[in-house]
C-alpha cells in the first residue's frame, strides 16, 4: 500500500466527504450549493486521475510519442462539468426565487415560515 502514490485518490475522497458534509450540515442554501459543487468536483478528479499516465501525451499518433493518456475520461468529465454548471446555475436561480418569496435563504427559517402557513391553513380549513 503506497500512501503517497495514491495522493490523488486521498484528495478525491477528502473533497467528496467534505462536500457531502457541507450539503448535509449547512442550513444556508448557498452553502449547500457550494458543498454540492465540491462533491461533484471530486468526481471529476476520480475520473481524470486514472486516465493520465505520467509522461503520457495527448493521443496524437506520431513517431515521437510512445505513451498516450486516455482521452475518454477527459471528454466524459467535460460533459459532467457542463452538467455541474447547469445544476449550479439552476440551483442559484431557485435560491433567488426562494429569497424573493420567503425573504430568507436559511432552510430552518423557511421551514418555520411554511409550518406557520400550514397551521394557519389548517385552522381556516376547519368547518366552523
Amino acid at each position, binding site marked *: 500500500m503506497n500512501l503517497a502514490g495514491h495522493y490523488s485518490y486521498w484528495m478525491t475522497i477528502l473533497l467528496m466527504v467534505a462536500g457531502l458534509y457541507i450539503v448535509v450540515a449547512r442550513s444556508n442554501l448557498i452553502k449547500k450549493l457550494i458543498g*454540492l459543487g465540491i462533491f461533484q468536483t471530486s468526481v471529476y478528479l476520480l475520473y481524470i486521475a486514472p486516465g493520465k499516465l505520467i509522461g503520457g501525451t495527448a493521443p496524437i499518433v506520431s513517431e515521437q510519442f510512445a505513451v498516450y493518456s486516455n482521452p475518454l475520461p477527459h471528454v466524459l468529465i467535460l460533459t459532467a462539468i457542463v452538467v455541474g454548471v447547469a445544476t449550479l446555475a*439552476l440551483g442559484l436561480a431557485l435560491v433567488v426565487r426562494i429569497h424573493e418569496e420567503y425573504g430568507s435563504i436559511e432552510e430552518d427559517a423557511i421551514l418555520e415560515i411554511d409550518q406557520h402557513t400550514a397551521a394557519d391553513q389548517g385552522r381556516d380549513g376547519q368547518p366552523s
Partner: protein
Amino acid sequence: MILDHLPALQVVVPLLAAPLIVLLRSGRLGWLIATAVSWTGLVVAVLLFLRVQDAGTISYAMGSWAPPWGIEYRVDALSSYVLVLVSLLAAVVLPYARLSIAAEVPSDRHYLLYAMFALCLCGLLGIAITGDAFNVFVFLEISSLSGYVLIALGRDRRALRSAFQYLIMGTIGATFYVIGVGLLYLMTGTLNLADMATRLGAVQEVRPVLAALAFITVGLSLKIALFPLHIWLPGAYAYAPSAVSAFMAGTVTKVSVYVLLRFMFGIFGVRLVLPGLPLLEILTLLSAVAMVVASLVALLERDLKRLLAYSSVAQIGYITLGLGLGNVDGLTASVVHLFNHGVTKTALFMLVGGIALRAGSCQLDALAGLARRMPVTCFGVVLAGLSLIGVPGTAGFITKWHLVLSALQAGQWWVVVVIATSSLLAAAYVWRFVEVAYLRIPTGPVAREEAPLSMLAPAWLLVAACIYFGLDTSFSLAGARDAAVMLLEGAR
C-alpha cells in the same frame, strides 16, 4: 429507410422541439408542438415495441460509430416496454395540460414550461433507450434538471423549496451513480452496458465492483425515492402544477427503477449481487417498510395531492419488492407495476388536478360533498383508487397477484402479510376520499361543475386503462414477463 432510424428519432424529436418552442415564444404554439412531439413519440415507441416483438433486440449505432466505441442505442424487451409507458403517459397528459397549465401558471411562462416538458420527455426516453452507462447519466440529468424547473413553476411558493430540495437530493443521487460508473469503467475499460456485462465476468478483483454496485444502487434509490430516501417526493409532487405531477408521478421514478433493474440483473448479474452483498434482502426489507409506513402517513395526510404522493412512495415499495424477491414472478410483478402504477397514479393526479381547478383546493376538509358537484371526476377517483388498492378486475390486482406468487415461491410468508396489510391501508386512505366526497354534507351551494372535457377525457382514458389492463393482460403482463425472463437469462 426511416424505420431504421426509429431509435434515434425517439430521442432527437423532443430534443429538437425544446429549443424550437423557446424560439417561438408562444404558449399556444408551444403546447401544439409538445403535443405533436409526444404523439410522434408514442407512434415511434409502439413501432419499436412491435419490431422488438418480431425481430428481437435492436442495436442502433448512433452516428454510425460501431459499438462499443460509439454510443449504442439498444432496444430490447424491457426498454421498449418502458418507452411505450413513458411516451403513452406524455401523449395523454399533454392534451390535458393546456387548460390545467393555463389555470395554474402565469401565461408568460407557458412556452418555457412546454419546452421543459419536451426536454424532460427527451431525457426520460433517452435513459430507457441508450445502451451506454455515461449516456444514461447525461439523460438522467437532462430529465432531472428540466424536472426541477417544472416543479418550481408550481403556484405555491412551497414548490420552490421542494424543487430545491429535489435538486440537492437528485444531484447527490446522480453523482453517486457517476461514481459507480467511474469505478466500473476503471475495472472494465468500457462504458457500453452490454460490453461491460461480458467484461465484468473476467474481472478478478471484486471489491471495486461491489463498491460500484453500492454507489449505483444508493444513487438510483435516491432517484427512485425508495424508502427512506423518499423525502423529496411528497413536496415535489404536491406543489408542482397538476399536469406536471401527473406526468412525473407516472414516469420519473419508473425510469430510474428501469436503470436499477438493468444494472442489478443486466450488468452485475446474480453471480455478484447474490453472494457479494445482502442487497436483495435489504431491498425487500426497505420495500416492506415503505409499503406500510408510507401508507400510514398517507392515511394521516389532509392534502389530497400529498396523500397521493405518499401513496406513490408505498407503491414504489411494491416495485422494488418484486426486484428484491428476484425470481421470474417477482421481476414480472416489478415491471408490470411500472406500467400499472404509472397509469393508475397519473389518472389520479389528473383527476385531482381537475378538482383543484374547480374546488380551488386539495385539502380534504374543503372537499365535503364533492361528489354532488363533480360526480364523474369523483367516480373516476374511486375506480382508479380501486386499482391502487388492488381489487380484482383492476390493473393493481395483476401486480399483487404476481407479488404474492413470487413471495410464496421464495418461501417468504411474511411478505404476503405485508402485502395484505398495505392493501388494507390503501383501502383506508382511498376510503377517506370516498367518505369526504360522498358521505359528508356539502357546506356551500351545490351546482354541477365538472372539469373541462379536455381535462376529463384524457384522465378517464387512463381510468379506463386501469380497468382494461386488469382484465386483458396480453400487452402489459406478456411484455413484462418477456422483460423479466430476459433479465434473468442475462443474469446467469
